């Protein structure tokens, strides 16, 4: 149990997947700034990232790899992503219309990234469970924090050319620098 925690816990803050591996940056900058909606979005993405990572990893590890079909993993993962899009995207819990699709797709990119990292590092199923849970939790946390910061930045005196995403990149860079001190 302790080993699993030691493996997974860094993924929460110090090696947060969005800040060290750049997974799933689209929803971070394009999600809603409304605190209530962001709460829903980050809870939803916690669920989606965890679910998609574990499902993708299990499909690869228990079905594709034993059958020598490992080269199909991208295709299978895109089917998984689109079925999740159909499942969650139509319930309208994550915003409106087509934008919600792309937010969900962004979180799916994050899930694919985490699953591929786990496959490359040859994690076992239990290790993958722990790693993906903490990675998803760290991602949801970052989504929430960044939405709040973007709301504050809206009123800050920012130069015209920096408005919007560029200043968000600076903020994320500074946060990443600070969190690297935890390693």
């Amino acid at each position, binding site marked *: 149990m302790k080993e699993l925690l030691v493996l997974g816990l860094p993924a929460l803050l110090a090696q947060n997947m969005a*800040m*060290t*591996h*750049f*997974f*799933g*940056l*689209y929803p971070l*900058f394009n999600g809603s700034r409304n605190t209530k909606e962001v709460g829903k979005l980050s809870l939803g993405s916690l669920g989606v990232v965890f679910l998609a990572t574990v499902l993708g990893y299990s499909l690869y590890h228990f079905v594709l790899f034993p059958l020598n079909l490992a*080269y*199909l*993993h*991208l*295709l299978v*993962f*895109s*089917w998984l*992503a*689109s*079925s999740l*899009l*159909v499942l969650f995207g139509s319930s309208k819990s994550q915003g409106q219309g087509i934008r919600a*699709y*792309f937010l969900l*797709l*962004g979180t*799916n*990119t994050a899930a*694919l*990234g985490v699953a*591929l*990292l786990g496959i*490359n590092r040859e994690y076992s199923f239990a290790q993958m469970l722990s790693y993906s849970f903490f990675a998803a939790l760290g991602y949801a946390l970052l989504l929430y924090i960044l939405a709040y910061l973007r709301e504050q930045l809206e009123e800050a005196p920012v*130069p*015209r*050319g*920096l408005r919007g*995403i*560029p*200043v968000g*990149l*600076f903020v*994320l*860079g*500074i946060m*990443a*620098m600070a969190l*690297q001190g935890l390693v």
Partner: protein
Amino acid sequence: MKELKEMMGRSFYDESPVFVTFLALCPLLGASMSFNKALGMGFFVLFVLSISNVLISLFCQKVPEAVKIPVSLSIIAMVVTLGDMAFELLNPDMHFELDPYIPLVALSCLLLIRGKDFASQSPPAAAFQDGVTLGVTFLVGIGALGLVRELLSTGTIVLLSSSFTFFPRELFPEFFGTPPGAFVALGLLAWGFSELKNRREERIAAEKEAGEAKK
């Protein structure tokens, strides 16, 4: 020729996936530690984007709206898988260094948005042209980012197998080679780019005003 120039200008200033819409951030930031890797990723995206645009335009014209996204995603995943294998065959070392970022292109929003919004409603030739212009724009952007990051973190540019040293390595710490440095470098470049864009827009507005005054 003038038409082509205008189209490149529009794609570069208004739709650049690197500096304006920020659609492919994951492969962009992950693969730009050095100029070589950035070029590799840029050419890969150029290839995948143009091929997948053509295929989506061929297959998706008559597909109902509800399943357009799943079908486009499957086509993109197939093209990326093939491209991934070709990349591994051509340049195994760089493929290993770029490891998780090449397959990740399959789910990047850039390809799907272009495929769904543009390619699925236009003939194959137009879709191919769109893919190539957007891919070249991405290549230029990621090349610039790779150049800046490598220059500021090591002081040396390595192009293919020859290297050019501009200043000693000790002058800058390795900040721009690390993940936080990637965010800051892209932020700086995007700032410069939007100043450039504003200046261009002002110039165009001034020209228009002058033209109207002449009339």
